[in-house]
């Protein structure tokens, strides 16, 4: 009986945890690439960032706002972190929790960046933040930190 109670408590604790914190997957570029070329009806907002990058962190709440504001418009926000080093996934998860950002996040861990930067966009020089906004018809790459107004204007241009 005791064991059963312990088990139930354990399981419920687990569930509480999974609600508050997302598990962050680490992928290489080959694994990330399909996400940059979806042909469904969703509009994708893909932001490349890192916890250490000051302008990235500053603009990050804008993506959370957009995610909520466009929830009914078939928009998916994905935060692609370029953090590296020990416990990168942990650091990113804790950071997003603290900032109350619940957008889908993944870590891109592929150190031969010269091989893949151009495949994201040929005009990208490798500095972050950058943001790719696309659907099956249109594609806009913003190679600078965005403002709230610019972000929603660009998304509207893609959607409409």
């Amino acid at each position, binding site marked *: 009986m005791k064991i059963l109670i312990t088990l139930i408590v354990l399981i419920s604790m687990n569930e509480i945890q999974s609600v508050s914190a997302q598990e962050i997957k680490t992928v290489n570029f080959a694994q990330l690439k399909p996400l940059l070329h979806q042909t469904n009806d969703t509009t994708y907002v893909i932001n490349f960032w*890192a916890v*250490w*990058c*000051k*302008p990235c962190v500053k603009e990050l709440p804008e993506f959370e706002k957009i995610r909520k504001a466009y929830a009914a418009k078939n928009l998916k926000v994905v935060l692609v972190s*370029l953090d*590296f*080093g020990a416990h990168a996934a942990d650091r990113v998860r804790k950071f997003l929790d603290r900032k109350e950002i619940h957008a889908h996040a993944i870590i891109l*861990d592929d*150190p*031969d*960046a*010269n*091989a893949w*930067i*151009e495949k994201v966009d040929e005009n*990208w*020089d*490798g*500095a*972050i*933040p950058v943001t790719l906004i696309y659907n099956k018809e249109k594609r806009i790459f913003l190679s600078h930190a965005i403002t709230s107004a610019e972000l929603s204007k660009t998304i509207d241009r893609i959607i409409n």
Partner: protein
Amino acid sequence: MKKLMFLGILLIACITIQAQGYKVGDIASDFQLKNIDGKTISLADYKYANGFVVIFTCNTCPYAIAYKDRIIAIDKKYKSKGYPVIAINPNDPELVPGDSYENMQKRAMRKRFTFPYLFDARQEVFKAYGATRTPHVYILNKKDGKLVVEYIGTIDDNYKDASLVSKTYVEDAIDALLQHKKPSVKFTKAIGCSIKSKG
């Protein structure tokens, strides 16, 4: 009126040129920047150099930190062969306090930099070169008294782990120049911290 228009066009042309920075094959400008020891340094001071490994880098960027030992190793290996490293911090310390001149001095002392570490206080040099991130490497080769840009890009193909590097872009480029050949890879891209500037 015509004169004004001409001036306007000239101005736009200048701005465009500045924004683009150098491409491989361009002639690079010399500069005068303050080193961490207080002395002002120009590339012209290095009369016996065959060229330079100019690296825009800083104290704070994780990529610059990951590469610091490799930058020291490149300087040690190639200075005696005529290609010294010239490191330049392009960041505005008002935006990144960790990249102040005093913090540059501390960092260079602690890490025993074997090369000059210059402060681009007016942020003119990185703009002229077209550097956008740290670290960002420009290999210059002296030819007929001019500095020709022969390579622009990253140091190698693995910022995370020096032991897993398979392509040593910068070393390969200098090795080619030492044999009076053109580098086979002249341009690479890398993830890096954007250079912090108010405008």
